[in-house]
């Protein structure tokens, strides 16, 4: 073990002790100054955008908005967001959405509830009312109080626009629409400041810490209480931080954070384009595809949040969430109404148990018209175990598979033949022995006992753990040590929203040692991430302090 790891191990353990026995957290960071990252600049995600607008203005002002895809980096879109660039094609739909939201907020239907004051005259500017509305909205959208200058400029903009249009509300909408495309809203910018408690060292300012926490735990901007805590400097004290984290992890909004993490981690955005051949898989309709994705999230929500179970058991649990359209494909009794979700315990003799046997996973990692053990194996390796499966070589010899006289009935026969080629074998041995364990489920995730009349052999092994069927594969995955380091790593990276520093990787390596004892309960994992000494650590910044937002120039 290298020296820095030793330096970091103790605080990680301390963090666990802190959250598990409610003692004071030693979260002031490591004594070494070598750790820490630079403050990040992340592009907001579509779900964050929607969640913020919904909490500020309500669901009925939300327009349909399409965010351009960002590059998946280190397995996460959240990490890619820290390098994402706003090209004209990215900004276009955001600009349209901004205007649509602003118009709805000020329309006669909404203005009385969403605007806290009435102008003296609806046909001219009203500085006081505009200021009241814009400063309140600005606090939520920018995740900090607007500076005096920012607020003055927006109030002036609203005033000029009101004079021009002879409409107070039109003026207000103009100012609001500009805030909704402002970099202060669209980018989550972290701000570093000199740490007064530790000479020569830097820290994230309170509002940046608040945003870190709320985007991580709630997939949205900080609420009023968290912003107040930030303004008071509470988040710089272990007690203050702990109080907020406990409040936030106890909130129903935690579900949103969990959904955001697992949507990203499991690459569920791919569902937007999952379609199956209607002739081969007539039961797999668009509604089924949507519900399959939702089933994964609801099962996770039920397992991790509602019931507080261990993450690893997600791969063996027989409890699933079920909707009416899915019941048909699962061959289970219809328990739920048309748009209802109900928990269901798969019977002991069911061939299914665990996340890998949900049709969502099975259909995502398959072709439109057939299953794919290679894709499923690759999905398990790359997504759930954070491993890299190399690209195939360009000149692959498929001559054996292509032999028209061979008459392969099953995927295993095809792949075994293919893998007699040593150049193919290397990588396929990483994926196929796992994926073949799921072959009793077709490309749409439906159970089948045979393929083209031939029996299906689902035996295999995962990194030395032998299994005979999909349920055994789930058990082998549940007990695979890499499953634990992978979720630790991804959850931490999702929390900071950028690639991990070397020191952070060393910190995260320590997580399983701690979680093995407590269990991989979601809230415990979150606390371990947040209270780890590296989570808020900032590298000393060069030169004079950047133009910092200080309490003095904040507008109140």
């Amino acid at each position, binding site marked *: 073990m290298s020296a820095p790891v030793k330096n970091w191990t103790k605080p990680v353990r301390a963090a666990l002790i802190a959250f598990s026995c409610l003692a004071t957290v030693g979260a002031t960071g490591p004594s070494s100054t070598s750790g820490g990252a*630079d*403050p990040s*600049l992340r592009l907001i995600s579509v779900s964050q955008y929607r969640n913020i607008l919904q909490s500020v203005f309500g669901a009925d002002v939300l327009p349909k908005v399409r965010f*351009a*895809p*960002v*590059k998946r980096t280190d397995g996460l879109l959240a990490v*890619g967001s820290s390098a*994402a*660039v*706003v*090209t*004209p*094609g*990215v*900004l*276009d739909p955001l*600009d349209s959405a901004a205007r649509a939201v602003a118009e709805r907020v000020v329309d006669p239907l909404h203005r009385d509830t969403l605007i806290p004051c009435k102008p003296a005259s609806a046909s001219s500017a009203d500085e006081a009312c505009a200021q009241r509305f814009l400063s309140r909205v600005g606090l939520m959208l920018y995740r900090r109080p607007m500076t005096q*200058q*920012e607020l003055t*400029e*927006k109030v002036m*903009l609203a005033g000029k*626009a009101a004079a*021009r*249009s*002879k409409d107070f509300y*039109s*003026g207000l909408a*103009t*100012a609001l*629409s*500009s805030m909704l*495309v*402002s*970099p*202060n809203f669209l*980018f989550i*910018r972290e*701000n570093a400041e000199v740490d007064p408690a530790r000479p020569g060292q830097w820290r994230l300012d309170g509002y940046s810490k608040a945003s870190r926490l709320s985007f991580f735990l709630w997939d949205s901007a900080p609420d009023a209480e968290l912003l107040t805590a930030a303004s008071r400097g509470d988040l710089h004290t272990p007690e203050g931080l702990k109080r907020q984290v406990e409040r936030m992890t106890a909130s129903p909004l935690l579900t949103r954070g969990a959904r955001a993490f697992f949507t990203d981690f499991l690459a569920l955005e791919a569902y*937007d*384009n999952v*379609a199956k*051949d209607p*002739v*081969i898989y007539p039961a797999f309709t*668009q509604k089924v595809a949507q519900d399959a994705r939702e089933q994964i999230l609801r099962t996770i929500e039920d397992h991790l949040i509602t019931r507080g179970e261990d993450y690893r058991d997600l791969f063996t649990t027989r409890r699933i969430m079920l909707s009416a359209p899915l019941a048909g494909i699962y061959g289970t009794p219809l328990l739920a109404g048309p748009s209802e979700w109900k928990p269901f315990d798969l019977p002991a003799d069911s061939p299914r148990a665990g996340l890998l046997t949900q049709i969502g996973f099975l259909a995502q990692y398959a*072709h*439109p*018209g*057939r299953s794919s053990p290679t894709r499923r194996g690759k999905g398990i390796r790359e997504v759930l175990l954070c491993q890299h499966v190399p*690209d195939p070589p*360009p*000149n*692959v010899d*498929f001559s054996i*598979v*292509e032999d028209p006289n061979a008459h392969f009935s099953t995927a295993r026969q095809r792949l075994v033949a293919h893998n007699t080629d040593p150049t193919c074998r290397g990588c396929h041995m990483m994926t196929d022995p796992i994926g073949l364990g799921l072959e009793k489920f077709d490309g749409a995730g439906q159970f089948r006992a045979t393929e083209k009349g031939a029996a299906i052999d689902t035996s295999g092994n995962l990194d030395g753990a032998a299994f005979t069927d999909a349920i055994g594969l789930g058990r082998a995955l549940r007990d695979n040590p890499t499953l634990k380091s992978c979720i630790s790593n991804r959850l931490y990276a999702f929390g900071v929203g950028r690639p991990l520093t070397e020191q952070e990787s060393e910190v995260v390596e320590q997580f399983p040692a701690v979680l093995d004892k407590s269990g991989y309960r979601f809230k415990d994992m979150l606390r371990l991430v947040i209270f780890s000494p590296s989570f808020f650590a900032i590298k000393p910044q060069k030169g004079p302090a*950047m*133009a910092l937002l200080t309490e003095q120039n904040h507008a109140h």
Partner: protein
Amino acid sequence: MLIKSKDATRRGLLKGILRGGAVAMALPLLDIFLDDHGTAMAATGDPLPTRFGTWFWGLGVDHEIFTPKTVGANFDLPPQMAALEKVKQHINVFTNFNVLTDGKPNLCHFSGWVALRCGAAPGARGELPAESLDVPIAAAMGGGVRFRSLNMAATGVPRDSYSFLSGDAINPPEVSVVELYQKLFGAEFQDPNSSNFTPDPRVLLRQSALSSVKDEAKAFENMLGAIDRQRLDQYFTSVRELEKRVELQLQKPPPAPACVMPKAPAADLPIGLDIELVTERHKAMTDLLVMALACNQTRVFNMVFSDSFSALVRKGSERTHHILTHEEPIDPATQVQPHASWFVERSMEAWAYFVEALAKVPEGDGTLLDHSLVYAHSDCEFAKVHSLDGVPMFTAGKLGGKVKTGMHIDGNGDPGTRLGYTVQRLMGVPIDSWGNQSLKTSREIGEIVA
């Protein structure tokens, strides 16, 4: 009254709007838009606008039934190109041009298109070493239209774009026909041939909103490190693009005789890669694009018919185009994978549809296509082995007489970047070489330059 000066127009509008209402200016529709030669706008003497676009299809071709036996003009059309018969006089086909990777791996279905778009072979999957050539071309062509470029993916998949600034800055495609229509011909569209020009009074409010955003961005930038400043610069550029679009809304658009506002699509097509569906989406997007060009909404476009790992599929078949390229035996008699080849033929039909759609729109002394240049290519030649030798490429259009068409050019193994270089030079990009390492070239393909 025909107001020619931009300033006069804007001042007039400002006055009108400040008086509290919109100004409706009745402008006479000119009977004759073009000069006597049909080569320039009569009103301004400006040459007819030129356009540039790209068209992409995945998984290459079958050499034996694609490559013409003869080179130069009057080349033969082998079976895989049969669909191009009716547009043959409008296109050039380029074979035997190679993508060289200088020891970097051939990243299947990636290295080829990346090199042909940006002049450099990637070192790893996901890496885009330089900006795609449509970006400098759009910059060289300047503004004056609502959209600097228009990206579309007939696959309906939001990640299918071959236009980019870098790996972190992809120009996202339009994936929905309804959304594409709204973007082009929705509320902000101003019919260039309308006799009434009524600028929306909200345009001025929008201008002040964007101006305020720019002020914020400047203050914001001061808080950032060097790399993030570059990212913010791009954001700033994007805001400027919006501003320019808004400015255009204050001006009476120049007349566009072939512009006819299309009908709004009733509903979007379902998602999925069934080839019938993708073909239908491609046609719908192409028709909207052609009208967008005729109506001067954009001058640069990128169309993706299928992606480089194409999972286009025939209803009822369990094997996608990509699976077929690897699993289907080669017929010894024809040296072709018949089912995989079927998809290539459909791709060529789509390409023919695209070229013909541009050629159907009359413009000046010719057609829209005659004033355009389209650069089309795939990601490899023979997908089964991912060959980077002989990646098929096309051009379509004469670019206002600057390009000769109707030819088959044999590249003799030269770098495929020669075409990208030629295309950029023709479009006025001020470069004297393009590409790096073995892909670097300063040799135009002179045979097609008029």
